[in-house]
């Protein structure tokens, strides 16, 4: 019998910001993104002056954090965040959006904010499909991936190719930070948290826009178990969407 005491894991405080459950299907990692945000808001003591803007889709569950929040239109979150930050520069403002919200219907809004180098943070959850509406093809859907609107698998002739948003964001001068993380392991979690923290710091230090893409499991629509979903992310999604930092500058001329 193993009598060795369990290793004590230090859990970051989220008492101020997580007071109600964030909704999600079993194995959904969007609430995990919400938890990382909650930990960081408390660590950086930002929660009291934060205004969060969520998109429309499963990402909007993150609006259940105990902070001031807005949900506007599908895709318009960067616009809404832009106005808040410009009018109220001492507030801390970020968006949480899905991949469809951010780079399909909201592509104009997203690119507009990047072009202007708004002093905000954008967090895009990439689950390779439209979760809320039942698993349709998204701009981030992998080649050959079966969805309800790519029943034979995504093919280039009709569906084009997956979009690489973190790499795209890094090409904009007004973007100070861009990275892509995942959540398939505890180490992944810590790295992704480090990326989001770095992106937040670019706003706090008034350097420029920070962007983080987080690859997130959607077991319900992928028709996999949560554990299979994590394996699929490691084996299929990460080769298409490499993890890491794509831009990190401390000064924009």
């Amino acid at each position, binding site marked *: 019998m193993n009598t060795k005491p369990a290793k004590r894991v230090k859990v970051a405080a989220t008492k101020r910001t997580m007071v*109600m459950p964030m909704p999600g299907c079993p194995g959904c990692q969007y609430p995990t993104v919400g938890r990382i945000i909650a930990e960081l808001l408390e660590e950086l003591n930002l*929660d*009291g*002056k*934060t*205004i969060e*803007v969520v998109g429309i889709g499963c990402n909007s569950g993150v*609006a*259940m954090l*105990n*902070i*001031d*929040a*807005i*949900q*506007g*239109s599908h895709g*318009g*979150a960067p*616009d*809404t*965040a*832009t*106005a*808040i930050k*410009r*009018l*109220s520069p001492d*507030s*801390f403002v970020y968006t949480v959006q899905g991949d469809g919200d951010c780079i399909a219907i909201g592509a*104009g*809004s997203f*690119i*507009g904010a990047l*072009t*202007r180098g708004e002093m905000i943070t954008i967090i895009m959850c990439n689950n390779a499909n439209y979760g809320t509406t039942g698993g349709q093809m998204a701009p981030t859907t992998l080649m050959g991936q079966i969805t309800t609107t790519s029943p034979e698998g995504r093919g280039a002739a009709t569906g084009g190719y997956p979009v690489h948003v973190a790499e795209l964001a890094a090409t904009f001068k007004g973007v100070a930070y861009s990275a892509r993380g995942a959540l398939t392991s505890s180490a992944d979690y810590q790295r992704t948290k480090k990326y989001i923290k770095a992106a937040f710091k670019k706003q706090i230090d008034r350097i420029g826009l920070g962007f983080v893409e987080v690859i997130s499991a959607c077991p319900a629509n992928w028709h996999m178990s949560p554990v299979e979903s994590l394996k699929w992310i490691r084996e299929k999604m990460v080769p298409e969407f490499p993890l890491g930092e794509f831009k990190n500058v401390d000064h924009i001329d």
Partner: protein
Amino acid sequence: MIDRVLVQGNEAVGWGALNAGCDGFFGYPITPQNEITEFFAREMPQRGKVFVQSQSETGAIMMLFGGAAAGFRVMTSTSGPGWGLMQEGMSHMAAAELPCVIVLVQRGGPGQGSVRHAQMDYMCVTRTGGAGGYKNIVLAPASVQEIHDSMQLAFCLADKYCNPVVVLSDGVLGLIAETVEMKAIDFGPVPERVWTVKGRDRQKSGIRQFIHTYPSGAPPPGGYPDYVPWLEHMGQKYDKMAESEVRYETYQSEDADLLLVAYGYVSRVCKEAINMARAEGRRVGLIRPIALWPFPYKVLRDKVDRGCSFLVVEDSLGQMVEDVRVAVQGKAEVHFLGLLARHLPTQGGMILPNRVLDEIRRLL
């Protein structure tokens, strides 16, 4: 001494907004309203206020959503094609009960239509173009002074009802210059905005604020127990707006047998025509709706009971004429003189007083 200055209609939008304490302007260039966007680009930074040139009108309206939610007086301006792009956002703002002012300087439609004046957006403005059956007050000034003053009234009404308010101008009013008394109108204190987002610890209540457009799907605050109770509340608000915000002007209407109904630049053409017709002894007058929504149905109906007939003059193929028909309920004759009566078949053609006079002579 009264401070009167010569101002262009589009710039009067800007001066009126500044007198109303507008904090932020968000907009996208489009003819014939460009002087408005340029005014704010020039004037706002000097005053420590916010100007953002958005990447589209879709973007501009969602910027208004954020600015209004954060408790600031915000506005945009556009013309027909941009108005179309703003409709989704307007529906969201109406649903979230956020105040803002949207100026629409009408040009000819449909599609790109023309870049010159017209009155072809009446229907989509008064019926609202976005999804879901919301309402918005529409003010239709007819002079540069009135544009200036309407902007201030619009901000006041937006705050009063927590709802978008539209100021409907056109390519003539926007580009003419008239002398204006640049006076800030006192509408009393701005209602306290306890519902804004500003950061949880900055809330007086210490309770987070969540602003969204899905009241039956999200928890309080800002939530309603269910969908129908929310709509009941919205319906009551719209009824109150319809009851309280009717605005109109009458001209020579007391003894009139024929009443012209017109708004915006065309109402001024009609006044000229009425003066000429009166000189010939014809009993003709004008009802000018100042608010197009709510429309002065009852005012027109009262005239029906006096035996008046109506001539709607409108620089379109016929839009407001439908509201006039609703008002008279088939109990009076309703005639129409529209865009086809322009003096030239071009974008710059106008309905001129002589043409309206001809019609009055034909009918009286």
